[in-house]
């Protein structure tokens, strides 16, 4: 196990797992508490269109995916607020549009898309130094935003209208948060893939919410659970030679089940 740490690719993967856990633990707590998991799913799948466009134009798909992700986040909000389309319908439309565009662009791109599978299923062992930098900068930014605006964010998430009557800049803070959510999703696509990215933003948080009903503690616990899941998933993926994204998610579900069952036992015997 020690010799693993002498491989540069493995150390890079560990650092990525750490930064991803901090970012997803934080942002996921907000997503789960505010019940906007489905919006996250919409952003994830819409950004697939961006990945396709990136291939077609021959530029880094992460950049085009980020643009698609943010535009879809704003688009979903605008469609439901201003155009009188029900939010879940708007999400469904963006979701489908993004997938369709992604398929069209990839089909139009001459030749075979070599690491398309990386985007669908993710591969934490393939992340570049550049990706690590991006995730770290976003992680620090998100942490700073939550640290300095914690009370405002907490209040908006609970009761947006009341926060507005208190003069909180609800619109601005909402846009900042939805942008951070979109970027978090896009940067994590490389780590666990489009299909699994939402689970990183929901399973550790749901596990944490079994243990605590306090928002601050929920964030800290989610981060810790995410770190345990991703580290153990990473080692399992190495030793059993299975894809890292899937094994990370598998570990997080196992932790969820363990916590849920032991919590039920605890409640049963403390009666």
């Amino acid at each position, binding site marked *: 196990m020690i010799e693993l740490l002498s491989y540069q690719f493995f150390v890079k993967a560990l650092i990525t797992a750490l930064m991803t856990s901090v970012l997803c633990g934080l942002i996921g707590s907000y997503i789960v*508490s505010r*019940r906007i998991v489905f919006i996250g799913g919409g952003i994830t799948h819409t950004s697939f269109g961006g990945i396709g466009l990136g291939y077609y134009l021959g530029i880094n798909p992460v950049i085009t995916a980020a643009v698609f992700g943010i535009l879809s986040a704003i688009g979903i909000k605008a469609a439901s607020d201003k155009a*009188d389309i029900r939010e879940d319908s708007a999400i469904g439309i963006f979701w489908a549009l993004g997938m369709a565009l992604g398929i069209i662009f990839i089909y139009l791109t001459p030749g075979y898309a070599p690491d398309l599978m990386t985007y669908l299923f993710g591969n934490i062992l393939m992340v570049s130094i550049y990706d690590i930098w991006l995730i770290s900068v976003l992680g620090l930014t998100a942490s700073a935003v939550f640290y*300095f*605006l*914690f*009370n*405002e964010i*907490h*209040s908006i*998430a*609970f*009761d947006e*209208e*009341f*926060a*507005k*009557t*208190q*003069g*909180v800049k609800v619109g601005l803070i909402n846009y900042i948060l939805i942008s951070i959510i979109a970027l978090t999703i896009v940067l994590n696509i490389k780590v666990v893939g489009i299909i699994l990215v939402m689970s990183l933003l929901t399973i550790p948080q749901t596990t944490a*919410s079994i243990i*605590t*009903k*306090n*928002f601050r503690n*929920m964030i800290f616990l989610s981060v810790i659970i995410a770190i345990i899941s991703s580290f153990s998933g990473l080692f399992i993926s190495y030793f059993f030679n299975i894809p890292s994204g899937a094994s990370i998610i598998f570990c997080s579900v196992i932790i969820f089940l363990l916590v849920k069952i032991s919590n039920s036992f605890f409640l049963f015997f403390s009666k």
Partner: protein
Amino acid sequence: MEELIKLENIDAGYNGSKIIENISLSVKENDFLGIIGPNGGGKSTLIKVILGLLKPSSGNITVKKGMKFGYLPQFTSADKKFPISVKETVLSGLLSGKKLFRPFSKKDHEDAEDLMRKFDLDGIQDSPVGELSGGQMQRAFLCRAMVSHPDILVLDEPNSFVDKDFARDMYQILLELNGRMTILMVSHDTGVITSYVKNIACINRTLHYHPGSDITSDMLEKYTCPVELITHGSLPHRVLRSHKIGGAK
């Protein structure tokens, strides 16, 4: 008396449909204004316009500069699973005075704690708000509305979820508060409202302002106020001025 809020010929609604029409209303300092009207008559819509939550489709609204609002929303099903404690809920009523990027001050915490003690919530201040009983939750939201000592307290159906004992206490508290702040209260409970408010406005798409707190048969007939609540009301001490038998439909 200084004018705090002035509405002139306001039309407002959702997605192009008009819920309220041609509303003009002036709320003065220290008023205790009750707004009554049938369900769907536009009570909550009017409140949202006043609070700046809904942009009117036409008309003018003027609010005194720097005015602080306290707001008790209609008791809908607050998200029972949302991770927020009673104390955090009350503290969120102090966001208007808090400096951006800074935590709540020591005084903010003390103000919140004092108020929770007064409302018998100090023992459960760390409990998640979603796990409280209906009455406790309503008290927590009332604390949140008044903790900042607002210039005007806007209450949307405050009596809808409290038990009878607390309802009486609550109105006493409101009367006390009215010495220091203006209160605007929406209610379908016309019986209770008349014994506490100073003035009444009746809204059913359009608004009619009635100085004084009696509900007259005139109001009931002309403006289709919720008559059944008055004829069937079982609350004592209600005086209906010039109430003709068979006059009210």
